[in-house]
């Protein structure tokens, strides 16, 4: 049985000004002033920059992305505002995996994942996600 916490493969995320511009436009944000990126990029960098896809994350937890994992909550701590035109390093680990009955899914796995976003030795943000993954029973339901 896999033990937790489980470190995941590190990764990186490049955040350029054009991407920040497009993302701001997409979510109808005010334009950037200075070089600080939209704060949602802590979330984006964590998910996109981790060396493990959501599909693999589900698999590591004994679940399948085909069953429709959902995001329950997130916590983002900003240590330094993220800036555009930087490439960030992302370290991640699954901190906990808990099986619970679910009114919505019958049985579900609650997965907690922690990410650390840094650049050139400086911490920029810490992100914690709580995901709920439907768990198929042995009879496939």
């Amino acid at each position, binding site marked *: 049985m896999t033990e937790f916490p489980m470190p995941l493969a590190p990764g990186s995320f490049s955040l350029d000004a054009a991407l920040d511009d497009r993302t701001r436009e997409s*979510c109808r944000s005010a334009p950037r002033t200075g070089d600080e990126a939209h704060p949602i990029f802590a*979330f984006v960098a964590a998910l996109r920059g981790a060396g493990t896809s959501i599909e693999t994350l589900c698999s590591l937890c004994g679940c399948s992305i085909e069953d429709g994992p959902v995001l329950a909550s997130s916590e983002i701590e900003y240590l330094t505002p993220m800036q555009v035109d930087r490439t960030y390093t992302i370290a991640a680990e699954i901190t906990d995996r808990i099986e619970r009955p679910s009114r919505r899914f019958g049985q579900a796995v609650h997965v907690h994942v922690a990410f650390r976003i840094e650049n050139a030795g400086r911490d920029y943000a810490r992100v914690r996600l709580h995901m709920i993954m439907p768990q198929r029973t042995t009879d496939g339901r």
Partner: protein
Amino acid sequence: MDDDDTWTLDGVPASEMIFWAELLDDPNPIHSDPEAARRLGFGNRTVNPGPVNLAYVMNLVAQAFDERPLSRITARFLGNVVSGDRVEAVLTERSASGGTARLTRDGGEAVLEADFTLSEEPGS
């Protein structure tokens, strides 16, 4: 209520959901395929990725607090926003150092609630 304490978007665009799904590397077809959304019980409109809803709330905070940087934001994802929805983000509590916010969709259904604190103002 102060207008700065409210942020709205009339008609969440389906086209931008595709952008966000690619940005987040999220293969879930409910964000791009109305038929897939229908099959999975979301009606025939595509579903906004959850982080986009959080971005809307961040927009509100930036607007209400004059772009002061966030120190921490905790969010609970309570429901789904679908294409065409009118969404509204509102500050439900406000102090000098932060507050709470709620994002609702058509009919007032709460889809996200967040608590946040802000970085200290320069010179404080």
